[in-house]
């Protein structure tokens, strides 16, 4: 069973097609890279799968069922924006997730918060953008979800913290889940990706196993990215 399957998925904003006839399947046990420059449709695609945007056309299936609010039980999504309520503390963010997601593990959250050098009594509104990015990763990866979707997880992150975040992502990858990561920082991500999906002006232009693509095209994913999006 595909964990996520999209069929002719399209999203229009007025006349602009942000996502255009996208057919993608995500299988368990894989880390996918959704790659493309800013404005290529990565975030819109992810927000549709997460249920924040509704498709203009096409279908989405999560765990074999049509997308509904119940799909959110299986999908752990980290948006690129800061999305925590300002009144919360780091600890309350954890309690909020524990209250609403049956697969949320408070111990993992506590460990990740420690690793990210945050503390439970910090107020969300007092966090810097880098600290917020770490908090988003901790809250997202503390779930034992079937599908993880991370939208630009390395945005605004310094080199040291970048390693901590990549390490948290790698540790979470297991044969029973799949991870979709969108990024335009391909060089930092390339080594952890099993499959890559190139999205250009809303259309899927390349999709497949990263190693096979390297062999077939005779170049790295970074070089191919430069070629496709130059």
């Amino acid at each position: 069973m595909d964990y996520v399957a999209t069929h002719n998925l399209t999203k229009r904003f007025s006349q602009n097609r942000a996502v255009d006839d996208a057919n993608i399947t995500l299988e368990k046990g894989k880390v996918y890279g959704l790659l493309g420059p800013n404005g290529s449709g990565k975030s819109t695609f992810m927000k549709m799968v997460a249920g924040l945007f509704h498709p203009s056309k096409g279908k989405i299936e999560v765990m074999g069922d049509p997308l509904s609010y119940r799909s959110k039980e299986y999908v752990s999504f980290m948006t690129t924006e800061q999305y925590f309520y300002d009144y919360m503390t780091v600890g309350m963010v954890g309690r909020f997730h524990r209250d609403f997601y049956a697969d949320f593990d408070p111990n993992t959250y506590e460990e990740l918060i420690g690793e990210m050098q945050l503390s439970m009594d910090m107020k969300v509104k007092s966090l810097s953008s880098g600290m917020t990015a770490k908090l988003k990763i901790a809250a997202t990866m503390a779930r034992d979800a079937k599908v993880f979707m991370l939208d630009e997880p390395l945005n605004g992150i310094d080199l040291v913290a970048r390693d901590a975040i990549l390490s948290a992502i790698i540790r979470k990858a297991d044969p029973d889940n799949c991870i979709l990561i969108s990024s335009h920082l391909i060089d930092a991500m390339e080594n952890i990706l099993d499959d890559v999906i190139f999205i250009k002006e809303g259309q899927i232009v390349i999709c497949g196993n990263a190693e096979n693509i390297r062999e077939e095209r005779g170049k790295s994913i970074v070089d191919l990215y430069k070629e496709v999006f130059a």
Partner: protein
Amino acid sequence: MGKLMKYELFRRSKLLISILIVLVFMEGAAVYGLYRGGEWLILFFIMLMGMAFAAFLVPLLDAVVNYYSDFKNTHGYMLFLTPQSGYSLIGSKAVFALIELLSALALVAVFYTANFHLAGAFGYTDELALLRTVFQQIPQMLGTSTAGIVSLGVTSGILQFFNTIMLAIFAVTLTKTLLSQKSFNWLIALLMYFALAMGIETVNGLVLTGFGFVTDMISFSQDASAVTLELGDEIKLDIIKYILVSMGLYVIWIGAAFTGSGMLLNKRVDL
């Protein structure tokens, strides 16, 4: 839904405490006006009216502004990413608003009752006697049905205001569905609300007319004895009938606004 309401409470805790402090301050000012008497009674009456306005308006504004903010700002993602149906999300906001409304009304009722007793302590004997005469006319008119009719009237009033809150929530949801990417959504939502409210009032008027409301009111107003004497059983039954019809209409509109908003959240709204 209980968990959703818990976080609605956390989110507003500072605001609610601030409103409580303001209401207590207003009550203090009212008591001071009552104590000083003379021209200071203007302060007393202004504070009484202010508290009544606050009890009705604060729950409405709080519910709508917070709901709109969930759409307008990215913190709404935190709420809308939870595995909760649109109906639960709307239900939690609606029930919270209703509790807020009932609490505010109860608090203001306590203040009003306290003021009534304080007026006696401050020597407003004649004024209280006049007020008692006015209040005594109600049981005189309604007879043994007084408690029932007054309870129905109060419930109907609360339903009417809850209907206003639900209609505003629906107007925001509908605006977000139809014009999710537009600026000035709040203005469009406001216009949408007025359009919906006018439409609903027109339908309500037509339904009441269908039940004979206009002709009954004319004959009621022509009955001069109605002002001072106990109303006949027929008129009392008419009053009960119209209150019940109004309550039925409000329940239908509240249900429609709830169902419509929940359905749009589930199927159509883009964050």
